[in-house]
């Protein structure tokens, strides 16, 4: 068990996770820019005022970070709410860019995790799976032994790369987490009759606002819904078994990434597709694609 967790590995997985999460944050910032103020402001006309969402979220724990903390701190030094919200947006974007290039990796990862968590908790009524998975990724990135050998911190600033035992431990944690996620996701789907008769897949694709293709087009593939629906359940439930052996890993990884790619295209969930691709490649993909890596002692 000790060998399995701390056996040592290259830091390729960490490079993939860092760059992928950085890219995810940059896209999140760019895409949400137009609605950013309306999502978080207390001003008249925002969708659901921030204080209500935060009150609901903090029912469980008052320690959960939220945008109001930044606004209160900003008001203390004389900044308006609008200014603080744009500063928060800008810092999150900067943290994402730093992660992509690998500058100030640790600080950028901590800042990205904290600000992203605050943002999604303060807009919890507008959050969905993509935000949870980004949080999961940022949480592990923040704790992982940064910088990796592809980061500018290593090559330009000459910061030493961390040891391989820690690399393999955090990669194992991410791998196990993905296995739990897919297993329970697949198992709970199998409990519903809709995944056995194709109705769930049909409804997922025709449900507004995810109906990217009209029902008239989708109905041509009606005989595929049953095998595809069952295929998704089996792919997810058996993920913890078949993702480990090298012989089947490539098939399951390609299958699961194809599934997320199809979700992105057919339902318009591009950010969700990207984060799931990033997490899967970081956890299981870097060895398969034979990226050149450096194993450090």
């Amino acid at each position, binding site marked *: 068990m000790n060998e399995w967790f701390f056996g040592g590995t290259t830091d390729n997985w960490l490079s993939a996770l860092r760059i992928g999460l950085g890219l995810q944050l940059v896209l999140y910032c760019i895409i949400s820019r137009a609605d950013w103020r309306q999502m978080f402001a207390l001003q008249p006309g925002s969708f659901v005022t921030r204080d209500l969402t935060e009150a609901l979220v903090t029912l469980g724990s008052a320690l959960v970070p939220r945008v109001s903390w930044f606004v209160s701190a900003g008001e203390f030094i004389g900044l308006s709410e609008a200014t603080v919200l744009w500063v928060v947006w800008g810092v999150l974007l900067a943290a994402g860019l730093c992660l992509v290039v690998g500058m100030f990796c640790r600080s950028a990862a901590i800042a990205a995790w904290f600000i992203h968590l605050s943002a999604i908790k303060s807009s919890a009524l507008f959050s969905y799976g993509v935000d949870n998975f980004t949080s999961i990724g940022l949480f592990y990135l923040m704790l992982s032994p940064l910088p990796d050998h592809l980061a500018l911190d290593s090559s330009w600033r000459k910061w030493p790369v961390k040891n391989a035992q820690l690399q393999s431990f955090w990669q194992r944690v991410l791998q196990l987490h993905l296995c739990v996620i897919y297993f329970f996701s697949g198992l709970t789907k199998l409990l519903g009759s809709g995944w056995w008769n194709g109705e769930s897949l049909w409804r997922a694709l025709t449900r507004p*606002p995810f109906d990217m293709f009209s029902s008239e087009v989708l109905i041509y593939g009606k005989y595929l819904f049953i095998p595809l629906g069952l295929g998704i359940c089996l792919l997810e439930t058996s993920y913890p078994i078949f993702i480990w052996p090298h012989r089947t890993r490539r098939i399951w990884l390609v299958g699961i990434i194809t599934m997320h790619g199809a979700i992105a295209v057919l339902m318009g969930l591009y950010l969700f597709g990207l984060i799931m691709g990033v997490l899967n490649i970081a956890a299981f993909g870097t060895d398969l694609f034979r990226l050149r890596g450096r194993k450090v002692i």
Partner: protein
Amino acid sequence: MRETIAFYLHAAGIEAGYGYFAPNVPYSYKLVFQLTYPNGTTEYELPSVATTETGRRLPTLLDFIAANRYEPLRQLILKMLAYSVWQHHRDALRIRAVFGMVITPSIAGYSRGDEPSYAVVCAYDFGFSKTERSPP
């Protein structure tokens, strides 16, 4: 202790389950605003967002409204959304928020020619005055 555990769950992104679209894919919900003007004309509006990405986040809010059994909270959220619409239509005398479920036909139903239908879950009337400056 309970608060610390809750914080850890949120911090690690593991406070939610992993049963996305499970065990079955639920029906979706729709919110329509009927705006009535002083001259008696009516106009219909949907919750407006600037980007399609935010639009894909709206179902979370609509699902929350549908699942919420606490009437005052449901009404408060709908009033906030109605108020955000009223900001762009300040001449409107009254806004009726109609919240309903979109029932999409099954595969067999669609093959027979069934169309999606809309079942009203609840509706509220809200009136805002032009002097109103603070959110509801």
